[in-house]
């Protein structure tokens, strides 16, 4: 047994070491930085301060950014749930041949580059983009709708990116629902709609929850899509961090915000895990 323990440790050491050195350590090292005051042009500074954190709580600018980030996260999650469920249902219940096709079509956008996808949305949503041109040509509107550089464009783009994640989680959850339970409901007099709401939906509850947590955490951490579709002026947490590190070079402030983002993400994931375990635990 202990020989196995030793070999096991040996086998996992390279990975563990790299994760420690290239992941855990760098993140932890940001903590001291976040307590330093701002000096223009880099991290080197002396003295400690809580300003970087307090400003997040007191400054209305940060309130706006955080509010925007969470609103965006909530809206995106809800839309992904509403749009993802029907697609997941069809995928999970399809015949094997169709299932292959559908799986490929759902997984394909996942593998496709974020930038390319956002670019496609820019082409669609810009003032001279496809959607506006089509609407104007059809005389449905006179002036172009503002679909980009605001929450709308951002939400559309993020839903597009994160929908496949939700679909895949839901498909797994649906697969775990015993078909017999639905058939039984049928024999007891419940029509397809009733069966869905009384049997299928509740049984996929944990799956919906897991998918929602995943989508929410990924959307509040998103950088590329908000930057491209929201533009440099429309800021969420991730883009603020990006700007503070690469534009204004206010590393301490950026570090503090990064930590707050990380903490929120970790707390949500941990809480979700605990809740799930409680809900699915045997009585």
């Amino acid at each position, binding site marked *: 047994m202990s020989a196995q*323990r030793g*070999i*096991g440790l040996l*086998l*996992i050491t*390279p*990975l563990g070491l*790299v*994760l420690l050195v*290239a*992941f855990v350590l*760098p*993140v932890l*090292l*940001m903590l001291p930085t976040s307590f330093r005051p701002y000096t223009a042009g880099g991290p080197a500074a002396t003295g400690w301060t809580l300003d970087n954190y307090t400003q997040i709580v007191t400054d209305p600018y940060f309130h706006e950014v955080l509010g925007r980030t969470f609103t965006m996260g909530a809206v995106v999650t809800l839309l992904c749930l509403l749009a*993802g469920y*029907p*697609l997941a*249902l*069809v995928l999970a*219940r399809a015949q094997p041949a169709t299932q*292959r096709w559908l*799986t*490929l*079509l*759902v*997984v*394909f*956008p996942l*593998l*496709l*580059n*974020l*930038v*390319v*996808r956002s*670019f*496609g*949305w820019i*082409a*669609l949503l810009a003032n001279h*983009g*496809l959607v506006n*041109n089509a609407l104007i040509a059809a005389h449905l509107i006179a002036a172009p709708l503002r679909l980009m550089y605001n929450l709308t464009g951002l939400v559309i783009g993020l839903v597009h990116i994160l929908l*496949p994640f939700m679909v895949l989680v839901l498909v797994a959850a649906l697969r775990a629902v015993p078909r017999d339970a*639905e058939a039984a409901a*049928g024999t007891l007099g419940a029509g397809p709609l009733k*069966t*869905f709401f009384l049997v*299928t939906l509740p049984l996929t509850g944990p799956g919906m929850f897991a998918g929602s947590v995943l989508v929410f*955490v990924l959307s509040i*951490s998103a*950088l*590329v899509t908000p930057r*491209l579709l929201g533009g440099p002026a429309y800021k969420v947490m991730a883009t603020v961090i*990006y700007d503070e*590190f*690469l534009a204004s070079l206010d590393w301490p402030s950026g570090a503090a915000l990064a930590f707050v*983002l*990380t903490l929120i993400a970790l707390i949500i994931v941990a809480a979700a895990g605990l809740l799930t375990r409680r809900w699915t635990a045997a009585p």
Partner: protein
Amino acid sequence: MTAGAIAWPLRLAAAIILAFLMLPVLVVVLAAFSTTDYLTIPPAGWTLRWFVQVLHDPVYLQAIRFSLDLAAAATVLAMAMAIPACYALHHCWLPASETIAAALLSPLVFPAVVIGVALLQYTAMLGLRGNFFVLVLAHAVIITPYIVRTALAGLAGFDPALEEAARVLGANRLSAFLLVVLPGVRASLFAGLVFALITSFDEVTVTLFLLPPGQATLPVTIFTAIDLGVDPSIAAVSTLLILATALLLVVVERFAGPRRLL
């Protein structure tokens, strides 16, 4: 739901949602053939000149080369580290194997932007800013969860009796692994490998912070190009990327089956 039959409103909804998923992809591909200097859909005319321009543009070519090098290096490193670890975890040679496995998957939900800035500061402190190997390590960290997930799933589905049979027949642990286990899980490993490659190739968020001066990966190049102004050459290079991804996906599905994709 009666067995087999799916109500048509549901099918319609699913079709619309699928169309939504495919829409930007279609738009990009169509725009790449446009004869005009700006995007119109449907294109005013059809031309391949943007593709020609992209394939001769040294900036794009260098970016493709850089991305491929980076993806290959990161994937090889990640596979070399992850597979032995997964083997040990699968056989529960470590305490709290399940917790460790979950921890190995954590980079998936961890905010990528935080990893990016953390490594930026870290490399600045160590004087390694812009170092290629650091970039490789960062990518390896990010793609490891994909390999861990598929490797563990593959090992879990592998009949343990086969490995035992090999051992009793005289193969030591390493030989048994190489001769019997690896061939048995190669489909899963292949899927994991392709996903890791694609993920590394596509990675933008962390890469933005760690690029060596004067170099860029393809996605970052496209990213900065968009900031400067949108034109069909961006659509063309994006279309090439779409084609390559689609091809790889089909190859994986052929070789490993649709189940491994989920």
